[in-house]
């Protein structure tokens, strides 16, 4: 019986993750400057029942994410992941956001193998979640906010 937590826990729950889980950047839904440029998505993780509601607002030329805010409940992984996402996405070009989101999904599907240094560097703080990919049951946690983001972007582009 191990009596101290193994290194695996420190690797999974990096200090950056615990900090973001506490601070939750972007938390609290904000009203939009221009409702026609806003997309909102509500996602549930059916395994645990946790939820996120996420709102994006695009710049007038639709090229960039001018604002993003969210609310929800979930585990430290999901809360931290959505918090990091907020930092990465606000102000970024939509095309870059989509690329980051793809890369992050790929990282999550990597089953602990990672994506290599270069690709992970490009993920910035989101690379801290690499350890999650070792735990298939937690991958959905890390992706919950990102799925909401993708869905919200689709909605705003469709003008829903």
């Amino acid at each position, binding site marked *: 019986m191990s009596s101290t937590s193994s290194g695996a826990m420190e690797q999974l729950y990096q200090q950056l993750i615990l900090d973001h889980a506490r601070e939750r950047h972007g938390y609290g839904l904000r009203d939009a400057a221009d409702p026609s440029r806003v997309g909102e998505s509500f996602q549930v993780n059916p395994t*645990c029942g946790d939820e996120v509601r996420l709102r994006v607002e695009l710049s007038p030329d639709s090229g960039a994410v001018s604002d993003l805010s969210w609310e929800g409940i979930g585990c430290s992984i999901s809360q931290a992941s959505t918090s990091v996402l907020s930092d990465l996405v606000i102000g970024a070009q939509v095309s870059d956001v989509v690329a980051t989101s793809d890369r992050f999904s790929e990282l999550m599907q990597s089953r602990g193998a990672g994506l290599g240094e270069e690709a992970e560097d490009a993920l910035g703080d989101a690379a801290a979640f690499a350890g999650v990919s070792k735990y298939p049951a937690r991958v959905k946690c890390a992706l919950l906010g990102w799925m909401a983001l993708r869905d919200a972007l689709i909605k705003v582009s469709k003008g829903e």
Partner: protein
Amino acid sequence: MAPVTGTTATAVDTGGHTLTAAELAAVRADFPLLERTVRDGRPLVYLDTAATSQKPQCVLDAEQDFYERRNAAVHRGAHALAEEATEAYEAARAAVADLVGVDAGEIVWTKNATEGINLVAYAISNATLGRGGAAAERLRLRAGDEIVVTEAEHHANLVPWQELCARTGATLRWLGLTDDGRIDLDTLPVINERTRVVAFTHASNVTGAISPVGPIVAAARAVGALVVLDACQSVPHLPVDLRALDVDFAAFSGHKMLGPTGVGTLYGRRELLEAMPPVLTGGSMVEVVTMAETTYMPPPQRFEAGTQMVAQTIGLHAAVGYLAELGLDGVAAHEAELGERMLAGIAEIPDVRVLGPADGADRLATVAFAVEGVHPHDVGQFLDDAGIAVRVGHHCAQPLHRRLGVASSARASAGIYTTPDDVDAFLATLARVRPFFVEGRA
């Protein structure tokens, strides 16, 4: 507990008392999986028996032996193998019936408890659509009819009734809960003369609370409602006499009672089974079939369409034999001791709250809990890292969690093979959870 004929294996007879350390070691030796290690070599501490139990070797052997020596289609062939397979299959039915104090003809095989409850709901719904002739009259729902469940139900004993209401126009109502998760008998007046079915759980898979069956059955009987008992969590852990409980239907699952996956049981009072139209239809449940119409066999065959989970019923027979040899009263005594130990231990850990009854009376050794400020999934992950398997999530009981003010929880649950050391390892690791997540690391 009447001795059950059939494959049994353990030498341990609890005599109704809790197990000695030596007896417990002998029991554990029967369960091969308990020897494995997880997460880089940590010994497994399996505290997820309420989700599914581990299986003793005799269950695996019984299934294997069936496939190696007697496998054939049952109730259909005249050859030697088919004869032997049919005999083994019906002996399993008799053993399960015996365990819960009913007749073999009142036991219908299902793939799991969920199917058993759905079977009752669909029989009622088919009767309402006119199937089953005059015999099914008493099952037909009419405008204004009500079905009563409780807020404590597993989704398996809630959603089928919601859907039955949606299909028939009946109304779903429910008994409420007290703050510690017990069925609130003050809400019994919800059962009234419009109530046609009362469906409730014998024991909660979240709070471990054992339901006050007597008063609920009495209220249902007083208005002539049918009683459906979800016995998933009781049959594996307590002596259960369904006839004495006076319920009309009861469902439970093999995989939670040391048996195989893929087999469950629906008990139905004989005259009700006889009145029910079939639900699944096909081979082995018909009498005369023409292209235009079909007549059906009597129960239980009427409800067993197609090739059944024969090998699994034989495995379940071995599991029932194993439980009966231990004695369910002994199982209950052993688990009660473990439950007390868990509750006492948790009470000493700051910021951990038990969801459900805080003391050991009328409850199982199934303990859901919340660690203040730490999400249950993170709690579970931390325990898992130490080799301790608990379940996290809503445990298929979202309304119950909502009622208790949380979205989800972590849950530790014991079985006959659980040791006091398992409980202690769990408690020691649980005490380190909040410091790890909330108080920051050195």
